[in-house]
Each structure stands twice: as C-alpha cells, then as structure tokens.
C-alpha cells in the first residue's frame, strides 16, 4: 500500500458535515392563496425536522467518539437563525452558502452547490442530511450531493454506528429494515423522527454569542460555476399548487331523554356508515 495517503493522526476527530435547511414551522405552514406558493416571510421558522434528526445523530456521534461537526446550509442570511441554533445544540461551526445568484435554484443546482461547498471546506468523513424537507419534500438533495462527490450513500437511516473505518446503518425499507455497511467517506440521509433532537444548551448559546462560529460563503468564495445555479439553471418549475380544503364540520347535539338521545345518535352514526348496523 505504498500509494496510500499519509496516515491520519489518531487524535484527529471524525469530521462530520450535517446539511440543514431552515423551513417555515410545520404547524404554521400557510399557502398564499394568490401565488399558490408557501409563505416564507413573517412566518416562524425552524430547522427542517428531519435535518434536526440528522444533526442529532452527528452530535451523539460527537458525544460518543469525539467529532468535529460542521453544519452547512444554503439560503438567505435569515437562515443564520437555524445555523445559530445548530451551534447552540453543540455543532462546532456552521457555514451558510448565500448568494443572490443562487435564488430560485431547485434541487439540481442545490446539490451541486452544496457538494462544491463541502469540497471547499476541506476534509470530511461523514455527511448527514435529512431524508427530505417539510417545505418541498423532494428528498433529492442528499443523494444528489453523494452523486456529485462520488461517495457511497445510505438513505432513510434511523440508526448509525461507526465500525472499522466505516458506518453501519439501519435503513427503513418498505417492508422492514435493512442494515447496510459503507466505508467512509459516505453520506446518509436520516429518517424524520428517528430520535429527539436535543435542545440548545447554555454553553452552546454562549458560544454563539461569543461569535465567529457561523460564517458565510459566496459562490465566488467557493468557486461555484454561476451558469449551473439559479432559477434559469433549474430544470423543474412549479406549474400549479392545489390546496386541499377540508369539508367544514357540523355539530349536532342530541338532547332530551338520554335513552332516546343515544338511540338517535346510534341511528345517525349507522346512517352515515360510521358504525355498522
């Protein structure tokens, strides 16, 4: 193995990149009735919940084995809020790729831009992403990054262990779970709800306040090809969004003699086929 790169010093911790997105809070999602797109301004936001699960896996690996966790996102500077929260939860640093020319990018340019940024940031052993975002639900970006970097990926992971220079991960499949092995560097996308992401800690929040841990990069900083990003270089367009309107509910109170009222209630439930005769 004379061609092997120099041996890493054993004190050097595992390098994890966790990719996150800031999304409108799930319970506050609103669709603009005119434009038929998600309202993003003036709505409380959060770390995309599956991304928070991915970050939690990264942080618990850090707790157990020691690791350097870098959080990465792409979006407007308002995403700093999510990145600061990630650092307050225990990430070592956070990087936001932010540039006007990225506006309107769909998942194809996004995966390209993020993979370039990860390369730009230096070495990595493990990349963790959420399975999908709650505001777009494509699930494209994680696999896209792995494709650009040419590294193995395991999708829909709910548990991830380190072993012998690689990872062992439990993957949720349609009909059960599968255990996969991959050598590092590799990428995993993480199932929504597979763990409970920790709260920001006092120490973490103090580190955020002290500053310098959340930094920004432009496309020029990273060396991203401007002809590959932005709205014009995004193959998908949103043609139409339909909102489902739930039928309004009507209440009916059955009064009078309890026995008679119950009999009427049962009759009504049978008529509506809520219960079987």
């Amino acid at each position, binding site marked *: 193995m004379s061609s092997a790169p120099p041996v890493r010093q054993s004190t050097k911790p595992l390098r994890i990149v966790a990719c996150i997105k800031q999304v409108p809070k799930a319970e506050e999602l609103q669709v603009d009735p005119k434009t038929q797109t998600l309202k993003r301004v003036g709505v409380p936001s959060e770390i995309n919940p599956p991304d928070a699960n991915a970050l939690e896996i990264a942080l618990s690996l850090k707790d157990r084995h020691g690791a350097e966790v870098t959080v990465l996102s792409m979006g407007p500077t308002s995403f700093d809020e999510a990145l600061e929260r990630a650092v307050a939860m225990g990430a070592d640093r956070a990087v936001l790729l932010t540039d006007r020319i990225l506006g309107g990018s769909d998942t194809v340019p996004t995966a390209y831009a993020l993979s370039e940024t990860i390369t730009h940031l230096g*070495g990595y052993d493990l990349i963790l992403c959420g399975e999908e975002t709650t505001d777009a639900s494509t699930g494209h970006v994680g696999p896209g990054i792995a494709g650009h970097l040419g590294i193995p990926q395991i999708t829909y992971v709910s548990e991830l262990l380190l072993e*012998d*220079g690689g990872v062992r991960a439990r993957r949720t499949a349609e009909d059960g779970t599968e255990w996969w092995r991959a050598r590092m560097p590799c990428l995993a996308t993480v199932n929504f709800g597979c763990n409970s992401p920790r*709260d920001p*800690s*006092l*120490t973490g929040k103090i*580190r955020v306040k002290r500053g310098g841990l959340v930094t920004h990069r432009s496309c020029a900083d990273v060396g991203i090809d401007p002809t590959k990003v932005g709205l014009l270089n995004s193959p998908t367009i949103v043609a139409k969004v339909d909102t489902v309107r739930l039928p309004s509910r009507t209440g009916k109170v059955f009064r009078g003699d309890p026995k008679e009222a119950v009999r009427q209630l049962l009759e009504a439930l049978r008529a509506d086929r809520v219960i079987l005769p």
Partner: protein
Amino acid sequence: MRNFSVLDLRTKGFYPPPFSVRDRMAERFDAIVVGAGPAGSAAALTLARRGFSTLLVERGRAPGAKNMFGGRIYAWPLAGLVPDWRKDCPVERAVTRETLAFLTEDTSLALTFDSPQTLQDAGASFTAIRATFDAWLAKKAEAAGATLIAGIRVDDLWREDGRVRGVVAAGGDRVASDLVVIAEGAASVLVRKAGLKADLEPREVSVGVKETIELASETIQERFGVGEGEGAAHVYAGQASMGLRGGGFLYTNRSSVSLGLVVSSEDLSLRKISIEELQTKFRLHPAVQKLIKGGKVVEYSAHLVPELGAGMSPRLTADGVIVAGDAAGFLINNGYTFRGVDLAIASGIAAGEAAEAARSAGGMSASNLKVYEDFLRSRNVTTDLERFSRTPLYLKNARLFDLYPRLLIEIAERMYRVDGTGQSRLLEAVLRETKSADVPKLRLLLDLLAGARSM
C-alpha cells in the same frame, strides 16, 4: 477530497475515547445572574458596568415573555441606573390619577387623588407592559457588556466542597462563576436549592391574575378623565375579592387596561373559590364594567405574588450567592400601593454594588457579601419593607376586606340617600352603622389603630 484511506481507520482505537465535551467547553464568568426581570437586568447592568464579566440567563424565550405584574412601575430607582431612561423607556402612561375604591355587590365608594405629575418628577410612576419593559432593561444590561442568554432554564447551583462554583443549566450543562445572583422571581427554585429558604407555604403567597383589555386610547382618556400620555391607577377593596383577603387593581395603558386581582391563596383554598370566578365577578361589577365596557380581553395571565413581609424573607446572601427581587420577597402591598418592580430594580443595583464591595474585600464569601444588606438599606428597600412589615399581618385581618368596606358604603348610603324618611348627619350615620354591624366598638378601634400604624 478523499484524503485518507479507509485502512487507516481500521486501526483499533482510532477514535479518541469518550470524553466529556462539557469539560472541554466549560465557560466561565465573574458573575451569573439568573432571571432577566427587573431585578436580574438591574443587577447584570450594575455588575457589567463595574467590570464583572456577567452572564444573564432567562428562562423565557425573551426577557419579559414569562413575567407578570399588575402594570405599574415607580420610577425612582431608574434614575440611578439609566440616567436618560425617559428617552427610550417603553412607558405606556404616566400615572396622574390615583383611586382607592370600596365595592359591595353593586355600589362603590371611591377616593380619588389627582396629582398632575409628569415623568420628570422624582416620584413619578408609569404603567408599562412587561414584554417591552423587561426587554428594554435587559438590552441596557447587554449594552453595558452583559451576555444575555434567553430560553434556558437554570436547574441548580453548581456546588463543590460546599462552595458555589456556578450554575447547572437544563441538560446538566455547567457554567462557572464566582457569584450567582438569584433573581428568579416569586417561585424561585434556586433559593430553596441554595438552602436559603424552605418551600413556600400557602400563607406566604398570594395569587395574582390579570386581564389585558383592549380599549381605544381616546376611550381610556374619556372614561378615566386623563389626558394623552396620562394614566389612572385604581385599587379596589371589598367585594372585588368577594371579601377574601386581597384586592383588585386597574391600570390604564396606552390602548388597553390591566385589570386584575391579588388574593390570598390560603383563602382561595379554604373558601374553595377559583380565582377565575373571582376575576369574572370583579370584571362584571358595575363600577368596573362602566370603565371597560366594549373592551376586548386580549391576554390573561396568572402568577404567584410573594407575601412574605420582611420578617419571613429568605436569607439574602450565602457564599457566592445574592438573592434579589421577588425571589427575596421584596414586595410591598400596604393596601393602597402595590410595589414590586421598583424594589426589584433597587435590589438588583444593590446586588451589583455589594459584589463590587466584596471583590475589593477579597472575594464572594458570605461574610463579604453581607454588605448587600447595607446597600439595600441605603436604597430604602429593606427600610420600606420593614416599615410596612406589619402590613401583611394587618392585611390578614379579614374584616378589612369584607366588613369594613361594607360599613363604609352603608355610611355613605345613609349620608347621601334622601328618600323622605329622614336624612342622617355624618356622625349619626357612622354610629348607627357601626352599632348594627356585628363588630364590637373596641374591636373596630383596635383594627383602625393597627391599620393606621401599618399604613
């Protein structure tokens, strides 16, 4: 990119052994203030100005988010803390009209005092909303150099070898400091964990409820007879609390009023009355209704109010610990004024001054911090508390909340009623009513004396 080989990682023991991330990242400050209310922010501001690296930790998502009070602040301690406070302090209205009203089921007898003082007066007071006022004061502390962290609960003091070394926050996270200022409010967990006080007894606390009712500012000015920027403060006794020990209050904000009650929690449980029921009756009282008619309740809040009185306060200092504000029981309720925020601010300042004195004296030992009590006295916090220390006991006299308001109103009714059956002279009215009331003259005299002495 793939700049290392998988084989390298196969080496056994590649990954560093588990270690405590917390130890590696331990943060430390000269002082940690727990609670970013008026006491905490005043303490943090004073400490930061005196060169202490200061951490101010707030449990709510922002300062003021979890806090509650009647609605009025006496401004006197602000001048020493933020000399130009009038420039940007979020004042709702300067209080220019004071009313003390006694209520029965459907009548009221009120005493109104017009004092057209402005915010420039040393004795000024104003109405405020805690979400904005607390945020403002915390910002001043930050501007002075304190580090404000919100949304974090402090669970315990970090103690080692009997000494306080800092705080333990939610999740077991520790931050070190020489001094911890406990400014957590009435239900402080830390004063108990610090061994400065036993658990709260029902008799030591009242329950405060408050509704914020929206009204147009012109309507407020019309109904309360105040000008723009001027406000009214009402205190209600008698039926406001259905005869339970306690009373009601109403303060005018810019375009809302704060209406609420402070009632003995002991009485509430003894009489099995819910505070919501009391508040509803109070809101529907004709004398109150005519003031708030057409208003919309936009906020409802409830909180414990310390009724400790100076005699029952927790110990105020220990090794590396100072207690300030409501956590120390610094509240005066003498029947005609409710004071909390001003005492909190003054005690916060005193805490900062005491820390500086202790630092000069060699450290934050209990004996060095004892000087806090001198600073409290020189700022008239404990002096005022001691002066009214009989009040809580006096206010424990149930006759004051039930019988006497009724008596006063019946006297008034006799004085003012002309129905052809013969009008009474004042003295006749008083004598007749006190005679028919089921209270011996001597008892009445003693109560009056006790009241005069404590007020």
